[in-house]
């Protein structure tokens, strides 16, 4: 019986063409309307070190990378060592590997190990080992029912600009691979079970979360980006560097993150929607300016793509440990909004939301993404990118007649004039100030202005998409998680349901202000509670506790360091442990 969900991982080192092979499979699949989720990983070498590419293909939309891989291709076992804890072959995986590579492990359980002379095949077909990745592509196509013609077309497209001889050799290598693949088919009946069965559908877009966020910025009307390169968020800079000139916007690569957020404050003060994008170390550096954005009430949007921390940490791997800094970083009582996208598509929506909120509330809004969704590629229908845009309101003539920039209105939101508007001149500052913006250090004024600045957040009581809920009502166990964890958690809900366990999930997108009423309701509706997060110190759990009462005795915590994706199995096992009579999971309050 063929499958509808297949994960292929390819592992090798620099020259092996691992990334190209993965990219070609993913692109071809997306063109045929298959759902794709693609992740890459690298060793510390800047170039030429170990690399891996994992592609999940599905007939149905995909929620997260799969826990294990169905097909593993290994060009060198030494390279595989680095990834062994992240790329785990399934119990019944098919492992294709270069037979010349030493130290192959033994097959376990139902695994099928197929040592193949990949380099030899490439040399024979194309005169060089360089096209062993193309040979492999051919093998994969025929064995697992990938869209052969689309991949060949993609190959032709990719190598079409090269010399004719090069293209010819590539095609030869691909055909040789296809032949080998067809031959292998007959050697073991287990292969058939891994063949992908699909019928063509509308082509899908394929993009990363960072790209989705960058598209969102343009869509939301952002016309100013300032940023400093940092992994894993530089794609936002790169994408906008390409598109901003086309839409008449500005991209400034600043000298550091202090300048980046400074320029964003300046541009926004001048009336243009403005964005910066960074990762943990950069967010730390932006702390002071974020407090100015809140104090001077200048709208700013900051995308923070989390990586392993603290300090320079693990730049290429994901973690959810910038949460507390996003929520509380910066001295003083600094109101801000924090919104966390849950997947690639949501990187688009959360970013548009962020601009809408920033412009309405005139304060900093942080989009708290992470490497897992920021850099993985997912397929999406073009229809997924609709989102209403709200623009800044300019002061009315009445408001300008007796203009006070920081008018203490009922909602706390004051009319914001921008340079160029006659009659709207004002001098603002980061000092505490009165309604006109004049410095003032009296307690009464400070209390009034603090109240005004925080009162604005109440507008979000009616924010529509504050929480994503999954699973049945009144479940036996309710999982609370955030951001990219949603994927594996929802995957786990399905598995648990299949086992007859009613589990549900509560995923706040709006992290601050926290949707406390909804959370309380959820907690009341479930028997046990499991908080899931990728932070060693349990930042999300601590934050939840500060917002709502988590019932002692029935609250549990799955929190761990990052640098490894959350898997559905982990969640499933934790739930099983909690629900088993002799449970030993981390109970939070004994």
């Amino acid at each position, binding site marked *: 019986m063929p499958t509808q969900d297949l994960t292929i991982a390819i592992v090798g080192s620099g020259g092996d063409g691992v990334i190209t092979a993965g990219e070609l499979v993913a692109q071809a699949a997306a*063109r045929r309307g298959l759902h794709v989720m693609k992740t890459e990983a690298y060793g510390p070498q800047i170039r030429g070190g170990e690399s891996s590419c994992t592609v999940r293909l599905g007939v149905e939309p995909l929620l997260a990378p799969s826990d294990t891989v169905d097909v593993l291709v290994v060009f060198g076992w030494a390279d595989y060592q680095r990834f062994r804890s992240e790329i785990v072959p399934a119990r019944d995986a098919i492992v294709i590997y270069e037979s010349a590579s030493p130290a192959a492990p033994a097959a376990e359980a139902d695994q099928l190990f197929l040592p193949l002379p990949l380099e030899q095949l490439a040399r024979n077909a194309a005169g060089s080992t360089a096209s062993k990745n193309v040979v492999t592509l051919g093998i994969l196509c025929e064995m697992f029912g990938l869209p052969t013609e689309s991949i060949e077309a993609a190959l032709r497209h990719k190598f079409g600009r090269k010399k004719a001889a090069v293209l010819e050799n590539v095609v030869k290598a691909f055909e040789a691979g296809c032949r080998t693949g067809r031959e292998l088919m007959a050697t073991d009946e287990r292969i058939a079970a891994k063949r992908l069965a699909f019928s063509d559908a509308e*082509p899908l*877009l*394929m*993009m990363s979360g960072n*790209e989705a966020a960058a*598209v969102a910025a*343009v*869509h939301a009307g952002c*016309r*100013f980006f*300032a940023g400093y390169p940092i992994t894993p968020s530089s794609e936002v800079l790169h994408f906008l560097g390409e*598109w901003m*000139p*086309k*839409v*008449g916007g*500005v991209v*400034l690569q*600043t*000298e*550091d993150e*202090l*300048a*980046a*957020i*400074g*320029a964003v*404050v*300046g*541009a*926004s*003060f*001048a*009336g*243009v929607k*403005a964005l910066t994008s960074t990762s943990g170390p950069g967010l730390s550096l932006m702390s*002071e*300016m974020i407090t*100015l954005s809140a104090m*001077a009430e200048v709208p700013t949007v900051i995308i923070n793509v989390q990586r392993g921390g603290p300090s320079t940490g693990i730049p290429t791997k994901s973690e959810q440990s910038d949460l507390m800094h996003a929520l509380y970083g910066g001295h003083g009582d600094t109101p801000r909004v924090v919104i966390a996208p849950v997947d690639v598509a949501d990187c688009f929506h959360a970013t548009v939301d962020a601009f809408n909120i920033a412009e309405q509330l005139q304060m900093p809004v942080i989009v708290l993404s992470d490497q897992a969704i920021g850099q993985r590629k997912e397929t999406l229908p*073009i229809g997924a*990118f609709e989102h209403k845009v709200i623009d800044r309101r300019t002061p009315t003539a009445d408001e300008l007649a007796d203009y006070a920039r920081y008018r203490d209105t009922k909602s706390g939101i004051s009319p914001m*004039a*921008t*340079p*160029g*508007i*006659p*009659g*709207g*001149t*004002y*001098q*603002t*500052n*980061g*000092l505490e100030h009165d309604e006109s913006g*004049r*410095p003032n250090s009296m307690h009464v004024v400070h209390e009034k202005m603090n109240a005004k600045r925080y009162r604005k957040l109440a507008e979000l009581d009616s924010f529509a998409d504050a929480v994503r809920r999954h699973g049945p009502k009144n479940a036996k166990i309710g999982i609370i998680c955030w951001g990219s964890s949603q994927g594996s958690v929802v995957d786990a809900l399905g598995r648990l349901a299949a086992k007859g366990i009613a589990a549900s999930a509560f995923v706040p997108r709006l992290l601050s202000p926290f949707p406390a009423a909804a959370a309380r309701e959820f907690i009341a509706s479930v028997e046990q509670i499991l908080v899931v997060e990728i932070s060693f110190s349990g930042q999300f759990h601590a934050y939840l506790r500060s917002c709502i009462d988590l019932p002692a005795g029935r609250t549990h915590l799955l929190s761990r360091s990052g640098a490894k994706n959350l898997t559905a199995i982990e969640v499933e096992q934790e739930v099983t442990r909690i629900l088993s009579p002799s449970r030993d999971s981390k109970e939070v309050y004994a």
Partner: protein
Amino acid sequence: MSDSAAVSKPNDYKTDLKPVWCPGCGDFGVLNSLYRAFADLELEPHNSVVVSGIGCSSRLPGYVESYGFNSLHGRALPIATGVKLAAPDLTVVAVGGDGDGIAIGGNHFLHAARRNVDLAYIMMDNEIYGLTKGQAAPTTPTGDKTKSTIYGNPEPAVDPCELAIAFGATWVGRAFSGDVKGTTELMTAAIKHHGFAFLNIISPCVTWRGDDQHKEIRAKLRALPADHDRSSRAAALAYTREADAVTCGVLYSVERPTLVDEIFDIRWKVQNGAPPPTTREILQSFL
């Protein structure tokens, strides 16, 4: 002022906020020069933006009828850069202290100058941290006793004008706040300059540097020779790190494209007359 036909007067640019400066502070002269320069240039308040950092000197925007931003210590230039790039038609003036611009803000000074952002950057140089009550600045001479260096400053001072030239500023001048007429002229030229113009105004702090500052500086004032070659880095260098003179005037002035020029140029080429793509069109690139 919105009636741009009317002739502007310095007083038109006064706000009703009273300066917090000490009696005798050099910054009063800078403010008065700025009122005059704005009037001479007939700047429209609503199309002018004055951005500062934090310090005594950085209080200035509050006293100028225009859009103004007294921002964070050291960050006037990134903010001013953002303003100028977002709205290139505005006249943008950045102001602040020597500490603000050379201590905490030194890096932004370098890069705003390098990029040739089209704005005037006016430094009120009092060789001290005024607002925090008298600590040494990077402009404080070696050996001087200050609140933070009671045995004498162990560090050497930099010359802000020398730095500006090395940073890539395309206009560099030096003025003395006690000379309102000269300062007004230089400020006017700085604002008019197409590109990053740096004007270092020696502006004495009577409270932490002593009442004699005005007098001492006046005694050292020199004018540039008439044949000074403004386009030569080497010629300008001769009037930096001066021990016994304070030479005022335009030390350096060259023309090269501003950052906005370059950005517009790229935009022009990239757009090539095509209308801006819609979200849908952008999304097509992911197919």
